[in-house]
């Protein structure tokens, strides 16, 4: 019953995270927020969105790891933390095998009859 034991270990006590840790993370998050807003003001072309999403992902990771105790969770839980993001990637990836590769057709030009 390997698994249920494994689960049970975490079952006894969720990990207790000191408030100070949370506070440090909050400060980090606020700084990052200000950073994205600032960066967004300068026009970097398509790098704007890349940058914004990278920063957002860093913030998200912090929230999951610390606020949501992700750091202290077991493998099974992590599987189900990761799956939705993998699927999101598959979804967007799959759809983008389509649209950018569609042939851009124009209707047949009808010759003017004299």
């Amino acid at each position: 019953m390997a698994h249920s034991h494994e689960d049970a270990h975490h079952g006894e006590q969720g990990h207790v995270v000191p408030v100070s840790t949370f506070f440090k993370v909050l400060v980090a998050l606020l700084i990052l927020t200000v950073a994205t807003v600032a960066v967004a003001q300068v026009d970097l072309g398509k790098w704007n969105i890349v940058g914004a999403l990278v920063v957002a992902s860093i913030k998200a990771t912090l929230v999951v790891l610390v606020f949501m105790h992700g750091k202290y969770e077991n493998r099974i839980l992590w599987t189900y933390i990761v799956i939705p993001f993998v699927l999101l990637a598959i979804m967007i990836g799959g759809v983008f095998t389509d649209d950018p590769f569609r042939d851009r057709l124009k209707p047949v030009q009808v010759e003017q009859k004299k």
Partner: protein
Amino acid sequence: MSSNAATLDHNVAPGEPPHIHHMDSQTAYGAAKLGMWLFLATEVLLFAVLFCSFAIMRYYHLEEFHEGSHHLNVWWGGLNTIILLCSSYWAAVAVTKAQQGDNPGVVRNFGYSFVCGAGFLVIKSIEYTGKYHHGMFPFGATENFYEFKNFLGLYYCMTGLHALHVIIGMVVMFIYGIKPALRNRYSAKYYTPVELSALYWHLVDLIWIYLFPLLYLVG
């Protein structure tokens, strides 16, 4: 959500885990947490559709999307982001308090989160009404004259669904967090509902972390 309803059992001494007929309290704790994370996974996938649509629509209407995002007020959005981050922080603290058996602490911190949630909704409604006055409100309008109607459509779908989650999150926090804590329900031995409601609240924050840059900044 009613998964943890199984743990709302009033005929047990305060601080004691409820009797669940078919499993011991440790298993129950693990089960509840796994269940909650699975539920969060489904929530993420709910929004995944919107993100995917956003990606495609942006691909087709890049200019309109830039145009559209300029019509959103970065400062309102930014303020809301900060509000949610703080509320998320307090929710996290509430869990620690619960783990230390500090029920008033739970009430206090969840209280802050709750107020933040309310503040978020207020600001959102200010934004919505502003849009409404500029005729940028989709309902009823069969043909939206704005060039960036696709952006607006997605903006309302995404923020609307998110706002709905904020409301649900607040209700959950109140029913499963604040109310029982007022009765000193929680202790180092038993705080599952606090942790679960906090998890849900963090998800609401998580989604917004992505919505804010996508809608307000890069468009």
